[in-house]
């Protein structure tokens, strides 16, 4: 049996976020080197600010300007920073209660080693040189000697700025190692010989192609391999008139469900070798392989007469 395939799979997407009034003020403030919190009805100051009081659920909008110095409430040493983290040298994750705030903010502390970090230590914001209205406008925190001056004055702030930030882009990236598993590996390996090989359920005898390693109806593992096709019947289809950005196929083209001879479930493929508007349900087709592709490039008509509706209607 061939070794099970694996391959890296990286998923990246730049999500957008609408900030709403409170986060807009907070992030725009960071751009202007101002840290804003929000005041609750019972007089607590929450930093970072939230839109709704966690205790009463009331909407809260009273912004205040808090200090850019504060106290570490707890911390954890990060010996091996990963891609995208605030610093690329070892640092401490810290919860910092800024002067004037009643809650703590999570950020990074630039420190030479874990021995230089302790709860209760005084720290201050190190502002990023280039600021855009994002949490990364705080480059990190750094140790701070109290006699450098006190910045703990808390003042009411309207939260209004020129050119406020109303949205941000939150880039997401996920790194996986993907494996299609044993059954799909066998299917993919057979494709290199231009064979379409499915698996038969030991109980209901249905042939699945591509195989899944188990029958979804009976819940039993499948292992008996069955070569199907290369001819089959178009059970149904649509004509695609809009170009997909990741596909190099001219529109219009026909996307069809094809029941390969010997399979009990249609697979999906493109129909070629016939004008798109002449494709029909029941059309008999066969796989066409291109030199550079793992899968059949498309399916083209054979010289057989169309299949009777009754022969494939149960496959719709």
């Amino acid at each position, binding site marked *: 049996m061939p070794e099970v395939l694996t391959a890296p799979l990286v998923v990246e997407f730049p999500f957008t976020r609408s900030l709403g009034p409170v986060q807009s003020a907070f992030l725009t403030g960071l751009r202007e080197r101002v840290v804003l919190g929000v005041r609750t009805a019972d007089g607590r100051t929450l930093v970072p600010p939230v839109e709704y009081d966690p205790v009463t659920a009331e909407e809260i909008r009273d912004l205040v300007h808090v200090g850019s110095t504060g106290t570490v409430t707890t911390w954890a040493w990060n010996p091996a920073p990963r891609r995208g983290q605030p610093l690329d040298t070892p640092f401490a994750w810290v919860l910092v209660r800024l002067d004037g705030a009643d809650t703590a903010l999570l950020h990074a502390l630039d420190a030479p080693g874990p021995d230089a970090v302790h709860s209760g230590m005084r720290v201050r914001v190190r502002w990023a040189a280039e600021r855009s209205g994002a949490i990364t406008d705080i480059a990190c925190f750094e140790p701070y000697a109290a006699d450098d001056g006190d910045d703990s004055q808390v003042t009411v702030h309207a939260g209004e700025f020129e050119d406020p930030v109303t949205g941000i882009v939150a880039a997401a990236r996920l790194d996986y190692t993907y494996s299609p598993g044993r059954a799909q590996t066998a299917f993919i390996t057979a494709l290199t010989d231009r064979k379409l090989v499915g698996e038969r359920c030991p109980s209901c005898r249905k042939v699945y192609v591509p195989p899944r390693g188990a029958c979804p109806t009976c819940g039993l593992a499948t292992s008996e391999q069955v070569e199907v096709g290369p001819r089959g019947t178009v059970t149904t289809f*649509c004509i695609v008139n809009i170009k997909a950005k990741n596909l190099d196929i001219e529109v219009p083209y026909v996307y069809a469900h094809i029941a390969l001879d010997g399979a009990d479930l249609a697979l999906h493929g493109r129909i070629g070798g016939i004008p798109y508007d002449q494709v029909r349900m029941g059309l008999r087709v066969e796989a066409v392989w291109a030199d550079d592709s793992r899968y059949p490039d498309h399916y083209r008509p054979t010289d057989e007469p169309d299949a009777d509706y009754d022969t494939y209607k149960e496959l719709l």
Partner: protein
Amino acid sequence: MSKEPVAVVGVGQTKHVAARRDVSIAGLVREAARRALDDAELDWADIDAVVIGKAPDFFEGVMMPELYLADALGAVGKPMLRVHTAGSVGGSTALVAASLVAARVHGTVLTLAFEKQSESNAMWGLSLPIPFQQPLLAGAGGFFAPHVRAYMRRSGAPDTVGSLVAYKNRRNALKNPYAHLHEHDITLEKVQASPMLWDPIRYSETCPSSDGACAMVLTDRAGAARAPRPPAWMHGGAMRSEPTLFAGKDCVSPQAGKDCAADVYRQAGITDPRREIDAVEMYVPFSWYEPMWLENLGFADEGEGWKLTEAGVTELDGDLPVDMSGGVLSSNPIGASGMIRFAEAALQVRGQAGEHQVDGARRVLGHAYGGGSQFFSMWLVGSEPPG
């Protein structure tokens, strides 16, 4: 011991639009929740638990958004549950919330579903390129269009039926202030002249992409007695699922949908849905799904659903109105779409549906489906308590 009767005493929606850039996700859900509480004349402290639903986290890229939304929904210190069943999730979420009341676990539950599609890319979220796999050849419409063609072949329906549904639902949406699409100049000719995207599905026969949220307050008999407005009573509710694809799957009329409807009707004592149910809020993201689901839900025999549509039976003033609100075809904040169907059904039996009210609606079905026609959730609500 019998179940506690479940009543809907508050309904709230946002105005569904292409992009709500003025609010965060928290602000969006808050708006719907506040409106539902206001409708019920209740406040956050009156709520015992919160049940929230949305489509995949990947749509907005916020992992487990329910955690971040606890403050906005007054859930701090209370049980909060997240439900996910793809496009049917709005319905399933309401049913999970209802089960908490029916089982007397909680007296009053806030349930809510949302999607902020403008911050996401659903097409991308649903079709990640996978190593070794053939790229998908079509989007969501391309997935469903072949099933529509199969329905047309099976039923012999004339190819104009889909356009009739789209034209009806878009006109209904004009009577619903919360609907996303308000196409004041819509005509049947315009629908029929719109571009064919995934033949046989035209552009005007597809749903929009929306930002929106929907919330309901569900309560027990005692809560209903205190309600300021007439409640909607739940007479039956069910969920069913089946694999996306399996040998023997009926992609036109999935067994799970039939079984789900049968369960709801059994609970509600319905033996002839066509005669005993007054209206339906049906999950129809592509117009042809109206006749398909009419059959799947037992309102018509197999192959006959399109005849109801063609005869005008499903029009707002017809004998069995379908999608009085304009339906998914007029507003589609995906995660919320199922709950909107359930909530609109409740509004109808409460007599609170405004301009799209069906006179004398006493029993209305709310329906949702999701994934590759593999998850189904439905409820039947009535103007009178269950018998």
